């Protein structure tokens, strides 16, 4: 029983981290209509900068802020130099241009930090595990869940209660109206993009202590993120949240239970490797099922 709860917590933790990336990606798509494949590169940058800062003795919180700030700054530059020119272009052009950005970012990071994975430790106070209700769970993972949920709540408040949020919501469905209100759309776009980049940076920095911080780490998680926002319905923060949790849970629980469930019905060696194969494709099956059932995701937004 406690194992099941642990696995659900694991799925939740993975899900909220995916959400941090998914939120930015879905906002940028919802408001600017841009598919940004280079979102994972901002996440990578956040991780590298945080690791560097921590390596130079910065306290953990400062290191995370440095990573997030660097990603946001890179986001602003990216928006001003490249993304801005893609708003009115076809999705395909956006895909190609942001794919090119991935190549540049990966090689750039390799030049700046080298190809060897970089180290970042879990802060000393958080290395242990917490025991509650007969369950032992790593403190740092609990922190990740808390941080992810806090950011989600913060985003909810930002979107639903503030003027910026109002503009973001309006911008997703009624671009012209927002422009007519006298709002500087270009500035709004830059702000939204920087916000998305910031969240990606936060995710990178928070995960840096438990992941290999290395070139190419952005693409590993990028596909999962896209699956999450597509399952949730593009452009919807709520959809991204549900989608990310679904992906996190399906992926984790698939890895936890598919091999176990197969054991009684298949030869052990086959069960292990077949189970591994099936759990690797579980999220893709999830996405295919959702899209066959609801071609615009679980929470479709407006008409686009």
């Amino acid at each position: 029983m406690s194992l099941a709860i642990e696995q659900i917590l694991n799925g939740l933790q993975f899900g909220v981290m995916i959400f941090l990336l998914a939120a930015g990606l879905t906002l940028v798509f919802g408001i600017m209509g841009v598919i940004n494949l280079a979102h994972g590169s901002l996440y990578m940058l956040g991780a590298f900068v945080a690791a560097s800062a921590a390596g130079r003795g910065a306290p953990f919180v400062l290191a995370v802020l440095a990573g997030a700030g660097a990603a946001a700054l890179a986001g602003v530059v990216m928006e001003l130099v490249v993304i801005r020119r893609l708003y009115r272009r076809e999705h395909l052009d956006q895909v190609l241009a942001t794919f090119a950005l991935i190549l540049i970012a990966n090689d750039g990071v390799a030049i700046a930090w080298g190809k060897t994975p970089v180290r970042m430790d879990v802060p000393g106070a958080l290395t242990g595990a917490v025991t509650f209700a007969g369950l032992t769970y790593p403190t740092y993972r609990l922190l990740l869940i808390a941080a992810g949920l806090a950011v989600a709540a913060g985003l909810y408040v930002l979107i639903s209660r503030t003027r910026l949020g109002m503009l973001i919501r309006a911008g997703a469905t009624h671009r012209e109206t927002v422009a007519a209100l006298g709002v500087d759309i270009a500035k709004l776009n830059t702000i939204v993009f920087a916000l998305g980049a910031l969240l990606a940076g936060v995710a990178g920095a928070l995960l840096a202590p438990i992941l290999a911080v290395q070139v190419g780490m952005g693409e590993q998680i990028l596909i999962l993120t896209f699956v999450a926002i597509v399952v949730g319905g593009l452009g919807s923060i709520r959809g991204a949240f549900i989608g990310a949790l679904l992906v996190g849970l399906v992926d984790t629980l698939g890895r936890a239970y598919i091999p176990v469930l197969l054991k009684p019905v298949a030869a052990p060696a086959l069960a292990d490797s077949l189970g591994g194969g099936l759990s690797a494709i579980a999220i893709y099956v999830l996405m295919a099922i959702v899209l066959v059932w609801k071609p615009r995701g679980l929470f479709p937004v407006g008409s686009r």
Partner: protein
Amino acid sequence: MLTFARASVAALLVLSLAGSAAFAADPPPLKIGMITTLSTAGGYLGEDMRDGFQLAIDEEHGKLGGVPVQVIVEDDGLKPANGKQIASKFLLQDKIQLFTGIIYSNVALQVVPDVVEAGAFYVSPNSGPSQLAGKGCNKNFFVVSWQNDTPHEATGQYAQYLGIKKMVVVAPNYTTGKDAINGFKRTYHGQIVEEIYTALDQTDYSAELARIRAANADGIYYFLPGGLGISFLKQFTQAGLKKTMKVVLPEFSLENHVIGAVGNDAEDLYGTAHWLEDLPFAANKKFVTEYIGKYHREPTPYASQGYDTAKLIASALRAVNGDLSKADAFRAALRKADFQSTRGAFKFGPNQYPIQDWYSMKVVRDPKTQKLQLRGVGKIMRDTGDVYSGACKMT
């Protein structure tokens, strides 16, 4: 008409661009084609290997075995198709007769047959696939590192030696991973309570770690190359599992890059390797000092393999005075393995894969510097070849 002209100009341009690297330099130096992985997440392995190889050339000021050489390095991007393309360029355009460099077996399996069929030589610094060790062996194919199964056999042996009763084994769900686990099982005879296969692009291992905890084993072996292993080890330690389980690893998951990336999490890990930084051989001491002096980073097995590969090639080039058209003599010289390996005794088996010693090692904290270091503990296997060589009928 203009459009056609432009189109064909473009086409010509592409062709000449693709080929122009070849027009750059003419011999005297003997060209060695190095196809390796420099980009992608696995790029640092190729970088180490290349730098180790280069170190041997620098020792001789641009020569190997007294023969001036020029190494042409190209990145395969971890794509077998790219490796193949580079190989045909090297073969057909640059007329290269001596190849090395490939890190990953899936690339090697595509490239090596092309190279040896063309009558050229391939000396592998890092990949010894089983397909090319038995029936598929070839007289022009040499492996300096190990047969792919052997590091895992050594690790199994060590786990056995450490008296671990119940093990969990983990590997990615692909052929190399399954081969690794089979290799481990060949020498480990305790109980394997859980066999876990992970995805190739996995970053989060929490689900697996919960399964591992539930399995109540007292030891774990995993083969997760590069970043996969780093992520896994960090999360494994985080989950507090290191307190209850002994971790026994093949050298891929326990080398200086890994230790650098995981920090204290590496403490008290066990492992096996065919080469160690602190092996007491003169050739090794020289290599380690020079490598750190030149590249300002700790050497890895990949670096030592690059260096040894270059030294082996040097010994054979000296024997034929750089004339590769004396293929039989060159081959015979390679077979002799008349060079000082950084890992001590080294000779080739009948399939031209190495026969060598395997060491056990442990991560310990240096009492003076407080730095974590890999220290040799002892020999775990002596003069060990591989199980496939019997099937090799060299022609």
